[in-house]
């Protein structure tokens, strides 16, 4: 009985330690040392209707993103009514908060939003591994203790999915619908370890 218990424990332990990889990928040789995300690299401002679902609460508004230089973006979120909720500058190694509404001024929330914005804004990534599937080329990069997988469609040669994972499991998935090389008309950021989903869709007056 004891022996069975120990074997089960070991099995559970091994399963928990299993390294995460996206399903169906096959490792291949790295030919390029960097991967470039071309979204948000244009000079004009990018506007999105924004829907945030956080632990059952909904918040909607408008997200504005403007590139300042290759490594820096200005990001502002306003409510539907127009008032500014958040206005930050995201640079390579820091986020400068120009304004945050009192009710949103929570360290954890700001850190989470910063990480989410960085996922879609950061343009140059150092590649650690490269994989292929039938339709995609997948690039893996490592930042601190986390891994980013960039899914590039072979058919369109466009980035359409980003996956953030710890060593053992996927934590955040970003689905992107491209409209052009620099503009994604729809972006969905889905968290798996906290109840947070951010949906961005093109802001367009009919």
């Amino acid at each position, binding site marked *: 009985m004891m022996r069975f218990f120990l074997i089960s424990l070991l099995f559970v332990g091994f399963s928990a330690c299993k390294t995460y990889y996206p399903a169906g990928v096959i490792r291949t040789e790295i030919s390029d040392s960097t991967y470039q995300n071309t979204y948000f690299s244009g000079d004009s401002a990018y506007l999105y209707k924004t829907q945030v679902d956080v632990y059952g609460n909904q918040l909607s508004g408008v997200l*504005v993103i403007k590139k300042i230089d290759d490594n820096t973006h200005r990001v502002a979120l306003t409510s539907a009514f127009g008032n*500014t909720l958040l206005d930050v500058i995201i640079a390579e190694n820091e986020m400068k908060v120009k304004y945050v509404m009192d009710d949103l001024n929570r360290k954890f929330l700001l850190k989470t939003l910063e990480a989410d914005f960085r996922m879609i804004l950061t343009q140059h990534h150092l590649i650690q591994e490269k994989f292929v599937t039938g339709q995609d080329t997948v690039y893996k990069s490592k930042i601190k203790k986390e891994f980013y997988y960039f899914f590039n469609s072979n058919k369109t040669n466009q980035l359409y999915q980003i996956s953030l994972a710890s060593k053992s499991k996927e934590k955040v998935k970003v689905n992107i619908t491209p409209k052009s090389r620099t503009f994604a008309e729809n972006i969905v950021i889905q968290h798996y370890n906290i109840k947070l989903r951010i949906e961005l869709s093109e802001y367009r007056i009919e």
Partner: protein
Amino acid sequence: MKNIGLLILLLLTQSLFAQDKKMTASEISHFKTTTEKGTKSIKTIKTDFIQYKHLDFLEKDIESNGKMIFKTPSSLNWKYINPYQYSITFKNNKIYINDQGNKSTVNAGNNKMFERINKLIVGTVSGNMFDDKEFVIEYYKNKDYNIAKLTPKESALKKYIKHVYLYFPPNESVVSKVKLIEPSDDYTLIIFKNKVVNVPIDDALFSN
């Protein structure tokens, strides 16, 4: 040379300020009396609006539009139609929100901040603001508008609003433009168009 530059700058600044002139005491009294008298005859307002959100780093303001209805004493519904559907209704001290089908209610009476916002918005639309104890009010005029500049007194509201400008066309008691300036100097400008007063409005429209 430097002095000439300074002189030109001074003249320019003066002419800019000269556009909005402070009202005299008698002008203020006349404006308040006529506006309040006009406001008393208003039972309903129905209008379209265009909203421009200005952020200092954007070349072009963010535009949205919708419809607004108001019924005395204090039922108000803002409905954003384009490019998003979002409606907010102020009625009987409650705030009803319909965010693209997600409905919620806030009891403004239980929340001082919402109560103030409710009062401000209803007052802004109806033009019945002038005896409000929570704002310092200054009066200006230019050739197109009589202008009331509201500055919150309390720090709780100051955190969100630096000034509110209400623009009244001459001889009208309903605002045609509202400009809300935030502490960062970013602002929201709302322009009312196709305004109709005193048409019957069904109470059922003030729900989410």
